[in-house]
């Protein structure tokens, strides 16, 4: 682009978190589109307002909470006019007017004026010593007061009031909290949790006067006390009003923009004037105003998309969660927890341990949660709340949390606050808690994605994701930006997996570039996350028609072997149902010797793994195995892997059915099929379950009267027993149900989503209805699977070993002998 091109002018009023987050997101999407000018009344760069409480409490410094220093604005060619206030927006001429009278033109305007603390209209409210709690200036004044005076009164027993009171107490003041109602934090807590909170704050020395109405603030030259409705008085040298915030929309209102309780914006964050956008605490969206960080960030992202002229994102409102930032008190609340006739509650109360948990359900879904004392599972409940998960299948254990349901990961370790800095959080990448905390504070990280990018924690297997989110919550004091409700497929798009699958069908899209074009991918060729996903979706949607894109497959599926850490490969031939023969074993032994294969290992899936094969040897190794009648075991595939069996009625004195034979039958029918993630089967000949069928993706347990079909188990990252699907009487019915189930999963699962995750998301009942109860649907699913198998059941090894497919893949392009 030429330097001389005149850019559009974007003016931002407000240098707070919402405005700057929007600018950051805009720069990511369209770095050169605008000349950006930011006006901020405060004499600082952008800082993290939610961390003012720890600054007041002396746990952090002002420098710790700076998000964007003045250098950042310079580096990004943004004109920062700090300490300058805008007094008027002239919509007719498209200009803003500063207090000094200077007129600055805009093409687009972003209003992010935030909010002001509500100052109660009490007599004496203008006395020195009466302050709000909103910015660094307020905190400075409070810190100063704490060194000069003794008695503080905080009006307001909400989140902000309690954090202010705690900070002042830590600075040595006697603090009384005055609250109008009889429950603390009544917007976030129910009376029981409010009572527990009050008790533990009292134990720390905080004094409460509640319910109490403040009538006047007393004093001549400076505040000296407070008088209440009942006539009593309290001495006070400092009065902090923390009864709430009020969206700051005066400027917008004066300019004639439509405002109610805030500046009214549409789902695209536009005000009634299309050139003017608004984000943050000053806006009202679908009748809601927000005072927490996560929603502001959601809004910022949408607004940036529109400013960048990539007009596809919409903001649908946010569900928020809260955590009190008072060190040593664990409190979490989310969603709607007011009692109602259509709501059900699950409550766990253990007074001696100081633990209280209340989960509110409506229509089988979590709609609210209040946790006190043990908030480890807060993010987990919140995730289910936002996802609208059907939790009926885990209802009886729900209140005990994720670990109890086997979702806490293999370590089962999960009290983040109690962990030492050396505790390893991410076992895959060896990242310990201290490193994550350090990265979060030093690099100003807010989201899970940020932490993944900077520390690699939770970026491999993902089983520590919950823990990492807790470390984030713990480090940032709770108000971090949780992952969005609808997850985009990857960073190349804002569309979800479901959107992509739906559009592929609706629009008859049949190539990866067509999908990317139609859905306006943000990157040229996608990335290593989305390309394999799209390839699978197209393959599963258009069997026989879609041409598999090898370059969009992960290396293992491209070369039909598993890459090892040293760049060699491992080779696993199929052993149907785990049954082999002397001649197969002899052939494997011969191959291992002939190609100097260093390791031969028996796998957990009842097969044999040849490890350390050089890439260029693969076709020859396969040719020898093919000659002995063996084919690829797809041990590398997001597809059907193994069918583990026990010996069953053929040999075993307890066997009720021919489990081995059934396993072989299933494997012969299903091999070669691609699925969203790997699929492992097990068939046990009796309930002793020697094939461990009840922790497989699909498991059959034979009984005397027939076959029990189970599914959605896991014994890897998570340990989870299967769910019982149905019981049938014949092998043919077993095959039909399992194949139909797998096909439904192939059609609906998200790429890399294991069957148990899919079941969690969609719901067991939903699946049973379509696979078991609706017989016509079951048969249709079976037919679709069978159809696609025609194109899938070609041994990829034979194609490459003897039919020359992908020959280039296995040979070097050239061999150079340099001097």
């Amino acid at each position: 682009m030429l330097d001389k091109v005149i850019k559009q002018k974007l003016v931002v009023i407000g240098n707070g978190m919402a405005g700057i987050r929007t600018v950051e997101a805009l720069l990511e999407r369209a770095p050169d589109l605008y000349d950006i000018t930011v006006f901020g009344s405060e004499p600082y760069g952008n800082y993290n307002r939610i961390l003012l409480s720890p600054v007041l409490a002396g746990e952090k410094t002002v420098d710790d909470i700076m998000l964007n220093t003045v250098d950042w604005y310079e580096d990004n060619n943004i004109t920062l006019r700090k300490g300058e206030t805008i007094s008027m927006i002239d919509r007719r001429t498209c200009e803003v007017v500063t207090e000094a009278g200077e007129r600055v033109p805009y093409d687009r305007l972003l209003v992010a004026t935030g909010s002001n603390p509500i100052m109660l209209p009490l007599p004496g409210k203008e006395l020195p010593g009466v302050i709000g709690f909103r910015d660094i200036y307020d905190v400075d004044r409070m810190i100063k007061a704490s060194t000069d005076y003794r008695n503080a009164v905080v009006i307001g027993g909400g989140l902000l009031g309690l954090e202010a009171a705690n900070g002042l107490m830590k600075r040595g003041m006697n603090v009384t909290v005055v609250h109008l109602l009889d429950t603390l934090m009544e917007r976030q807590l129910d009376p029981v949790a409010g009572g527990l909170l009050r008790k533990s704050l009292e134990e720390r020395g905080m004094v409460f006067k509640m319910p109490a109405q403040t009538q006047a603030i007393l004093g001549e030259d400076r505040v000296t006390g407070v008088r209440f409705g009942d006539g009593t008085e309290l001495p006070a040298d400092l009065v902090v009003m923390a009864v709430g915030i009020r969206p700051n929309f005066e400027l917008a209102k004066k300019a004639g923009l439509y405002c109610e309780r805030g500046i009214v914006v549409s789902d695209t964050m536009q005000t009634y004037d299309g050139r003017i956008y608004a984000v943050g605490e000053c806006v009202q969206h679908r009748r809601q105003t927000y005072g927490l960080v996560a929603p502001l960030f959601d809004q910022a992202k949408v607004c940036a998309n529109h400013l960048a002229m990539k007009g596809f994102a919409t903001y649908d409102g946010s569900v928020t969660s809260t955590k009190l930032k008072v060190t040593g008190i664990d409190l979490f609340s989310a969603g709607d927890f007011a009692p109602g006739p259509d709501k059900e509650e699950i409550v766990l109360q253990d007074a001696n341990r100081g633990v209280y948990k209340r989960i509110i359900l409506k229509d089988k879904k979590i709609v609210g949660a209040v946790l006190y004392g043990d908030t480890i599972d807060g993010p987990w409940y919140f995730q289910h709340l936002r996802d609208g998960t059907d939790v009926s299948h885990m209802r009886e254990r729900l209140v005990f949390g994720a670990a109890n349901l086997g979702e806490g990961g293999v370590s089962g370790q999960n009290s983040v606050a109690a962990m030492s800095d050396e505790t390893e959080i991410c076992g895959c990448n060896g990242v310990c808690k201290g490193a994550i905390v350090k990265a979060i504070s030093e690099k100003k990280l807010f989201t899970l994605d940020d932490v993944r990018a900077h520390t690699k924690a939770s970026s491999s297997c993902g089983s520590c994701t919950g823990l990492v989110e807790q470390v984030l919550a713990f480090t940032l004091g709770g108000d971090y930006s949780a992952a969005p409700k609808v997850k985009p497929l990857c960073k190349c798009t804002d569309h979800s997996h479901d959107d992509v699958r739906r559009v592929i069908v609706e629009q008859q899209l049949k190539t990866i570039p067509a999908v990317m074009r139609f859905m306006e991918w943000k990157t040229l060729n996608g990335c290593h996350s989305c390309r394999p996903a799209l390839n699978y979706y197209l393959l599963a949607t258009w069997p026989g028609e879609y041409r598999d894109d090898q370059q969009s497959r992960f290396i293992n599926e491209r070369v039909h072997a598993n890459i090892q850490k040293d760049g060699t490969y491992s080779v696993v031939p199929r052993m149907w149902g785990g049954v082999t023969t002397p001649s197969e074993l002899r052939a494997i032994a011969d191959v291992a010797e002939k190609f100097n294969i260093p390791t031969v290992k028996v796998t957990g899936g009842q097969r044999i793994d040849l490890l350390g094969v050089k890439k260029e040897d693969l076709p020859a190794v396969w040719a020898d195995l093919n000659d002995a009648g063996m084919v690829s075991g797809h041990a590398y595939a997001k597809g059907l892997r193994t069918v583990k069996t026990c010996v069953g009625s053929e040999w075993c004195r307890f066997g009720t059915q021919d489990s081995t034979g059934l396993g072989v039958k299933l494997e012969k029918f299903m091999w070669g099929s691609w699925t969203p993630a790997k699929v492992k089967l097990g068939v046990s000949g009796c309930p002793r379950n020697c094939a461990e069928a009840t922790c497989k993706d699909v498991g059959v347990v034979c009984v005397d009267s027939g076959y029990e079909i189970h599914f959605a188990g896991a014994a890897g990252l998570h340990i989870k027993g299967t769910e019982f699907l149905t019981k049938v009487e014949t092998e043919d019915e077993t095959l039909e149900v399992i194949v139909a189930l797998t096909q439904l999963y192939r059609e609906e699962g998200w790429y890399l989503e294991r069957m148990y995750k899919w079941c969690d998301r969609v719901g067991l009942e939903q699946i049973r209805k379509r696979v078991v109860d609706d017989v016509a649907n079951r048969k249709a699913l079976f037919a679709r699977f069978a159809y696609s198998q025609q194109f899938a059941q070609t041994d990829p090894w034979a194609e490459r070993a003897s039919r020359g497919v992908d020959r280039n893949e296995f040979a070097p392009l050239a061999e150079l002998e340099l001097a």
Partner: protein
Amino acid sequence: MTSWIEIGALDDIPRLGSRVVRTPGGNIAVFRTESDEVFALDDRCPHKGGPLSQGIVHNKRVTCPLHNFVIELASGQAVAPDEGCTHTHPAKVENGIVWLSVRQAAAVS
């Protein structure tokens, strides 16, 4: 002193793919982008030595197959916030033929 060596036809490298050139100093991965540009890098990820030639190519980047480090093909630099750099070698296409100039740094492997 750039001495160019002919290493093969452009069409022998798949679009958005890579082929390996063996040298006494170690393998060099030659990449082809969607728009038929070619780039050559040592076939070693700066992270744990993974073979970059086996990765997924997107735009002018490749993702290492071992731990998903993303490497810029033009510079060999890991994409932030990851850190590290892989040696690059000059490569060009003329009339459908790919030419490579091996920089001796590759000999250190």
